[in-house]
């Protein structure tokens, strides 16, 4: 009887606590929280790059830009580089060897060495140059579901190299409610053509996305006389004065990517192959110096929910990279080849713990193992016959790191983030082999790079919500960039050189987001970057001989401000206007008054779109880059600029997109880039000053017409 009473009492208690119980106070807080969100936030559109976990943009302790598939389609960008140069704070250069990204007033002569680029969370790093070259990252725009750009040092989460941030490109977002298959074909200026196919599906617990594309362009046809200071020099380089780049800048790209999930497992495989022509050091004579890259990544991931408050994610990725060059310069019979490559794997383990609703803890460890790194050069005309630079037998480049970050909600208005990473690359032995082992005339020289020091990289951030519509982010972060295999090759020539240390950056930033109304948003960032131990080629005296080697001699400071205003006066009309002011100063003694190369002071961006109806949109993009100086070579005597300062330029693009043609999923897209046919010049680099001291010329007006079908 007593038991029965007890049962009834407890059951009654259960009824008193129904499932939707909440205190009035919590109720109001939640209402305030959700009623200040916009449509995308309410639909829970979140980004994962900033903290390797899903977070809402306003809650992220970093300055973030999100580019969605809808945006890419509306603005009709032709290439990934075109998307990147329309992201506030970023700009692109092209020296006819490689495209490179400048960011926040800083540009490195090694292509994309200061920002990490990932595809589906996998870093696409070239392990020889520690760079993220666009030649390897040829993701077709049609495959991109979303790009998350986190600006600012992100080394705590992503390790060395995330100097100025992270660009994470997603091509594997499966949504069964959307069209899952797509085919499209494009033609455009410079004999450009592109084919793209995408298919996605779901069978029980297995779902997959496949993207494949082929791209070809004949490239620019530009007279060298417009780029070189004195055309009279061209005959000395084996060319006539009216020589052009016709047929010497061809490019082809193949991209395949297959991703999927099965229960707690995920996989992602990608293969890219590019053939590119260009010119390096000297202008091409015949068909152009050809560069071929092959890159393969295979990634397997596993997620496990450990409890209601913790989960584990792990990844193992195998990668292989090959690059070959066949040089064309100076005279018809010129012979020169280069082969390089590396393979390895990286493993990552991340643990996410939420011990209380106010506290998130993220911990992780990464292990990167790179071996078979080689760079074989044969250029007899430059006294380089069968030179092989490689890791010594049995050696590997190992980078190991651990990190932890906490996100703590101090109050409704205040959120605090602190994190730190410890990372080490102990060292490795390189060797130089000269000659041909098969005929027994080879010699071997070895040198060891050693830097056992564990690097400590901190990060701290405070997010303060003044009220529902005004959010301030106070950010500090450090990042490091380790010397690359190529930079350490100098040790083979002079083993006594001090080992290169990681480059460092400290960034202080205040980010203000104001949602002034449902139609008007403003984002303002003020930042200060302090860069130290930058690796430059510098003069060194060894045994009374003056030589140029890489050394940690660079020191720079940048301050700047970025402002973006977004306005949507009517549901069909959208404007976005951004401006960046940045001033970078070379802090080295004696260099304070030397204008920093490739560092424009002003950048401007414009986006506007109008939807005539759901299916037809017209949009324009614009980006302005102010004048830039060329490379300043401090190793010359006297130190000299390698080229002329180039004028600023404004690129206006327009795009017309018609969706659901004939009432089905067919679409038509016409993108015109550089509509005003403005002359674009990129300043001379150490790679091209012999033939482009006035700057290489960028694309003029060009178009790309795409027709496709989503089904």
């Amino acid at each position, binding site marked *: 009887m007593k*038991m029965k009473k*007890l*049962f009834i009492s*407890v*059951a009654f*208690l*259960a*009824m008193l*606590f*129904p*499932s*939707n*119980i*909440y205190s*009035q106070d919590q*109720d*109001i807080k*939640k*209402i305030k*929280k*959700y*009623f200040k*969100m*916009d*449509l*995308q936030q*309410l*639909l*829970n*559109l979140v980004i994962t790059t900033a903290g390797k976990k899903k977070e809402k943009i306003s809650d992220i302790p970093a300055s973030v830009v999100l580019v969605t598939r*809808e945006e890419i389609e509306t603005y009709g960008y032709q290439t990934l580089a075109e998307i990147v140069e329309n992201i506030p704070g970023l700009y692109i250069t092209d020296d006819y060897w490689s495209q490179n990204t400048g960011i926040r007033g800083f540009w490195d002569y090694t292509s994309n060495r200061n920002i990490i680029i990932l595809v589906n969370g996998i870093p696409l790093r070239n392990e020889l140059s520690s760079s993220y070259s666009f030649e390897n990252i040829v993701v077709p725009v049609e495959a991109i579901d979303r790009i998350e750009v986190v600006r600012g040092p992100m080394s705590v989460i992503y390790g060395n190299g995330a100097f100025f941030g992270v660009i994470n490109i997603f091509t594997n977002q499966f*949504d*069964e*409610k*959307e069209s899952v298959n797509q085919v499209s074909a494009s033609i455009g200026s410079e004999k450009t053509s592109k084919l793209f196919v995408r298919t996605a599906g779901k069978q029980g617990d297995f779902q997959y996305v496949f993207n494949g594309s082929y791209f070809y362009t004949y490239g620019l046809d530009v007279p060298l006389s417009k780029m070189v200071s004195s055309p009279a020099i061209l005959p000395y380089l084996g060319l006539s004065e009216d020589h052009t780049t016709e047929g010497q800048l061809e490019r082809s790209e193949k991209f395949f990517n297959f991703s999927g999930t099965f229960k707690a497992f995920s996989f992602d495989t990608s293969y890219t192959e590019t053939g590119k022509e260009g010119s390096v050091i000297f202008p091409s004579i015949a068909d152009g110096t050809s560069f071929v890259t092959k890159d393969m990544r295979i990634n397997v991931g596993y997620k496990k929910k450990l409890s209601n408050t913790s989960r584990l994610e792990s990844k193992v990725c195998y990668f292989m990279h090959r690059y070959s060059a066949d040089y064309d310069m100076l005279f018809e019979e010129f012979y020169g080849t280069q082969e390089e490559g590396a393979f390895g794997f990286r493993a990552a383990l991340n643990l996410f713990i939420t011990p209380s609703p106010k506290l998130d803890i993220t911990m992780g460890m990464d292990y990167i193992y790179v071996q078979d790194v080689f760079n074989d050069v044969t250029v007899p005309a430059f006294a380089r016959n069968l030179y092989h630079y490689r890791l010594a037998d049995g050696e590997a480049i190992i980078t190991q790191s651990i990190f932890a970050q906490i996100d703590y909600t101090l109050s409704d208005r205040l959120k605090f983030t602190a994190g730190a990473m410890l990372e080490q690359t102990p060292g490795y032995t390189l060797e130089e082999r000269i000659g041909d082992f098969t005929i027994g005339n080879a010699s071997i020289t070895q040198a060891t790079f050693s830097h056992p020091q564990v690097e400590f990289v901190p990060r701290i951030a405070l997010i303060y919500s003044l009220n529902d519509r005004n959010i301030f982010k106070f950010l500090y972060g450090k990042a490091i960039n380790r010397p690359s295999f190529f930079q350490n090759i100098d040790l083979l020539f002079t083993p006594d050189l001090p080992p290169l240390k990681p480059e460092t950056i400290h960034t202080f930033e205040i980010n203000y987001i104001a949602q002034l109304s*449902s139609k008007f948003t403003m984002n303002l960032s003020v930042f200060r970057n302090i860069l130290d131990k930058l690796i430059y080629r510098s003069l060194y005296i060894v045994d009374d001989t003056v030589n140029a080697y890489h050394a940690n001699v660079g020191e720079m400071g940048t301050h700047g401000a970025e402002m973006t205003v977004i306005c*949507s006066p*009517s*549901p*069909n009309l*959208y404007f976005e206007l951004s401006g960046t002011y940045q001033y970078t100063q070379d802090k080295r003694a004696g260099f304070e008054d030397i204008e920093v190369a490739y560092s424009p002071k002003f950048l401007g961006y414009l986006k506007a779109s109008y*939807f005539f*109806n*759901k*299916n037809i*949109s017209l949009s324009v993009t614009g980006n302005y880059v102010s004048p830039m100086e060329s490379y300043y070579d401090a190793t010359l005597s006297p130190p000299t600029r390698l080229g002329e300062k180039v004028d600023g330029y404004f690129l206006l693009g327009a795009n017309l997109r018609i969706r*659901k043609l004939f*009432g089905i999923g067919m679409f038509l897209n016409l993108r015109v880039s550089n509509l005003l046919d403005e002359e674009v010049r990129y300043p001379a680099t150490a790679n091209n000053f012999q033939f482009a001291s006035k700057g290489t010329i960028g694309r003029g007006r060009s178009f790309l017409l795409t027709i496709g079908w989503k089904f």
Partner: protein
Amino acid sequence: MRKCITVLVLLVVTLLSALPLFSIEDEYYRKAALFKIFSQYIQWPKNSDVNDRSKPFVVGVIGKNPFGSILEAAYSQEENKIKDKKVEIRYISKMEEIESCHILFISKSIDKEQELEEILAVTRGKPILTIGETKGFAGKGVLFNLFISRDEIRFEINAQALRESRLIPSSQLLSVAKIVGSLEAP
């Protein structure tokens, strides 16, 4: 011992019954806020009383109320107006009350086809934004149907019913929705 086990079991039952069963965090707070956002992206016909400032904007809920007191708490706040009008929440018990609504939320408890048909018979062709949360409702004539996909709230739009209602959605709204049928008039 048996007593202890029984008490323990009952306590577990009690606690379990108090746990929220939401499949997405704060689902109904989000849905309540979506009413306001949807309204910002939709134009009602010029002759609709939405444009009459003297009348409130009416949000109706038909079927078992899943919001608890969220709707009243949210829309009683001065800043949470819709179309710059005060919002009145009505729980519909009679079919004739439906016509006064500008938004009508059809809760999960309306799961019989006949019940739904009775509701749609009243709303069809009228500028009433019907919002469902039951699989297949968009296909049956509900204008907007909310569903959960991969931890996100998504929604589908019945294009034909929307056209007949004379409500005009913005392209931004359509760009994030799944469209059932064609938006173009036949």
